[in-house]
């Protein structure tokens, strides 16, 4: 996710870091690239204008021109400004009230129903007893969809008889939740256009009736320039408390999040990262800003790993990542665990500097290369797995024959592994912005 944007910024800002001093003209050129990159990432053009103006103002000032590390300064400013925008508002997911009422609103097809199920599962893990309610009397089979999801999670789903007014559905759902001793009520609403006055009034009535503690706008990460207008219209009608950015597992650059937060001040509270009901992640602005700048996201990686590994293993892996003592043996172990953790593309994209490899990695899984990699590593001796440097030509030929692969395959794996180790070593140095700040 966000790969293309981070690539662009890396290229532009990389040119800046290559020199000791940065002129005003350099900053101008860089800002042109930043503008284009952000626009191609679907960041609203007005937000882009403000953003580049702010960065330019700070960058062309004395602090950069007098500094010997001009590139570092510009990177830092872009990073800080991105983080500042993405840090807008209060990102806590509030669950006060009995029941705590959460309302999901948004355009058609943004992913409200799927998100409702994901949130229900999320609060179950917080130790709560949720109930889902379908307040979508319009889309054919919308209620069925929620029912199916609820059944798969073993969470009750409230649905009113056909023809019930939407605010009534809300009140009925609250009664039902109290009756069944449910402490959290998640209300799924119909998709609606922000310019549909009747339906916007309806959802406003619903919110007035159920007094939600959280009213979340569900936004598709692929949405274009209209994101801001849509968010503003919803914010005017209902008491929005935050956003859920969905379908972020695609390659959409997700500029919508930046735009909406910049204009409305609303925080992103969750990311939807897949079609399954567990694909919901909390949002971390600093990590996301870091990812936009190509700094990777080791923290999220470790966090996700926690669900699949026990704590001791996580600690071991974190240590290995830091000290770059990661061996092919560990890689083999990893490959076994990866299946539990989600797609390898997700995992790889979180390793600093490897964002570009994510798609490649996913492709290789789909082509069955994971199996080949496994076979190659299994054909190595323990000594070879620990130190691939000892792999001379004859050892490689033996491994190729032993694993039923070709010498090219073995060479490719060794090369990839060496590169990976190099990346991790850079990361382990404890520098704040690896890969971006010059090449000492």
């Amino acid at each position: 996710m966000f790969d293309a944007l981070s690539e662009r910024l890396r290229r532009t800002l990389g040119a800046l870091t290559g020199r000791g001093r940065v002129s005003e003209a350099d900053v101008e050129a860089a800002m042109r690239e930043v503008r284009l990159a952000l626009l191609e990432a679907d960041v609203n053009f007005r937000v882009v204008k403000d953003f580049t103006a702010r960065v330019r103002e700070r960058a062309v000032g004395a602090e950069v021109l007098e500094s010997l590390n001009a590139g570092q300064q510009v990177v830092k400013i872009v990073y800080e400004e991105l983080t500042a925008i993405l840090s807008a508002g209060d990102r806590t997911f509030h669950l006060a009230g009995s029941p705590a009422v959460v309302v999901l609103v948004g355009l058609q097809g943004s992913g409200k129903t799927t998100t409702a199920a994901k949130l229900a599962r999320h609060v179950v893990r917080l130790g709560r007893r949720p109930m889902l309610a379908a307040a979508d009397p319009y889309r054919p089979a919308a209620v069925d969809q929620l029912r199916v999801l609820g059944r798969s999670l073993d969470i009750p789903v409230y649905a009113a008889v056909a023809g019930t007014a939407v605010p009534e559905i809300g009140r009925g759902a609250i009664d039902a939740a109290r009756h069944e001793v449910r402490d959290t009520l998640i209300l799924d609403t119909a998709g609606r256009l922000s310019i549909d006055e009747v339906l916007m009034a309806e959802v406003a009535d619903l919110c007035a009736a159920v007094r939600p503690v959280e009213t979340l706008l569900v936004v598709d990460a692929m949405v274009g320039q209209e994101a801001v207008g849509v968010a503003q219209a919803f914010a005017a009608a209902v008491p929005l408390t935050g956003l859920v950015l969905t379908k972020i597992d695609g390659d959409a650059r997700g500029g919508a999040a930046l735009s909406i937060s910049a204009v409305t001040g609303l925080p992103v509270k969750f990311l939807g990262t897949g079609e399954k009901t567990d694909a919901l992640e909390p949002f971390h602005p600093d990590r996301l800003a870091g990812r936009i700048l190509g700094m990777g996201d080791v923290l999220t990686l470790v966090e996700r790993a926690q669900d699949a590994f026990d704590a001791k293993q996580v600690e071991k892996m974190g240590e290995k990542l830091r000290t770059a003592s990661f061996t092919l043996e560990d890689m083999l172990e990893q490959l076994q665990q990866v299946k539990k953790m989600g797609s390898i593309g997700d995992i790889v994209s979180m390793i600093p500097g490897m964002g570009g490899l994510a798609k490649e990695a996913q492709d290789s899984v789909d082509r069955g290369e994971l199996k080949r990699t496994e076979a190659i590593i299994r054909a190595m001796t323990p000594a070879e797995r620990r130190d691939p440097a000892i792999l001379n030509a004859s050892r490689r030929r033996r491994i190729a024959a032993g694993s039923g692969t070709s010498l090219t395959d073995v060479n490719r794996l060794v090369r990839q592994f060496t590169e990976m180790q190099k990346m991790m070593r850079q990361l382990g140095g404890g520098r704040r912005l690896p890969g971006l700040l010059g090449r000492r």
Partner: protein
Amino acid sequence: MFWRRRPSGESAGPAPAEADGGAATVPDAEIEAQLEAELAAADAALAEAAAEGTTTMPEPIGGPAGAVEPEPVGPADLGAGVARSRGGFVARLRGLFGLGEPDAATWEEVEETLIAGDVGATLAIEVVARAMERHDPAGPESAVRAELAALLAPRDAGWDLSPADSGRPGVVLVVGVNGTGKTTSIGKLAARERAAGRRVLLAAADTFRAAAIDQLRLWGERAGVPVVAHAPGADPGAVVFDALDAAVARGLDLVIADTAGRLHTKVNLMDELAKVRRVIDRRLPGVRPEVLFVLDATTGQNGLAQARAFHEAIGLTGIVLAKLDSTAKGGIVFAIEHDLAVPVRFVGVGEKIGDLLPFDPDAFVAALFG
């Protein structure tokens, strides 16, 4: 095994064991019986319609009853359909163009206006640069309009979604990422085709999303067309194969297949789609399926990556631009048509069954400028 025994009088071909290993989870007899009933109902409705001289539909299509003849929509129609979304955009462009001889700042504003319409920054810059080159005596609006129109794919004015000849059904495969409006578009398309006198069958090959099959069934009821479905989780290729079989056996005109929404970056899911395509090619060799890509008009620059990936995986023949009644402008269409030469065929302008209009490129560009 999904293979079904045919009624006597028609020789069943050799079971293509290699065609698909998918296991149908619904007993064949059940599908057969259900299909018989749905077909009978649809036939009865058609016969009744013929007798009365009108077309009876569960819901009226596109306005007054009887006005169901699918005509190419004129600028006025499309303009009306998207009027709500165009107001601000058009007013701004108009304002810009009313200022007389355009200076650099004016062109920059034009560029910004195109960007705000999701045309894309790179393309907007190109379009404006070329429009400036034109030195169009009719003014910048005319120049930009001409440049935008030139980006659209060439298309045959007489195009229609026609069934294949020689007694074999035409096939329409509907694809796209999650939540763009595939199922809704299919419901509208089915009603449109049926109103044109074609006997349509829907294939519920979205076996993944919860209740997708139910949703398609409800649209089938509304449009008055039968639906072939297996149980949730079944192999989509098997569903399509079954639907094609049923359509051939009954001599139907058109099979429209729904598919699960999938992000274009998921290689295995894209492969699954390619497999569905192969199932069609094997069951009906020589029938060139219409592959319609449903694009949400609110989509930004990612729309191009989506279209490219789907085109690469299965070969798109057309686009349905859904949700054009929103505030979005659908400007990404220019980049897609320019890049892939795949034309937009229909636009979705609402949630009602008649809210699907044929795409008219002139009207689309004109609607952009009011």
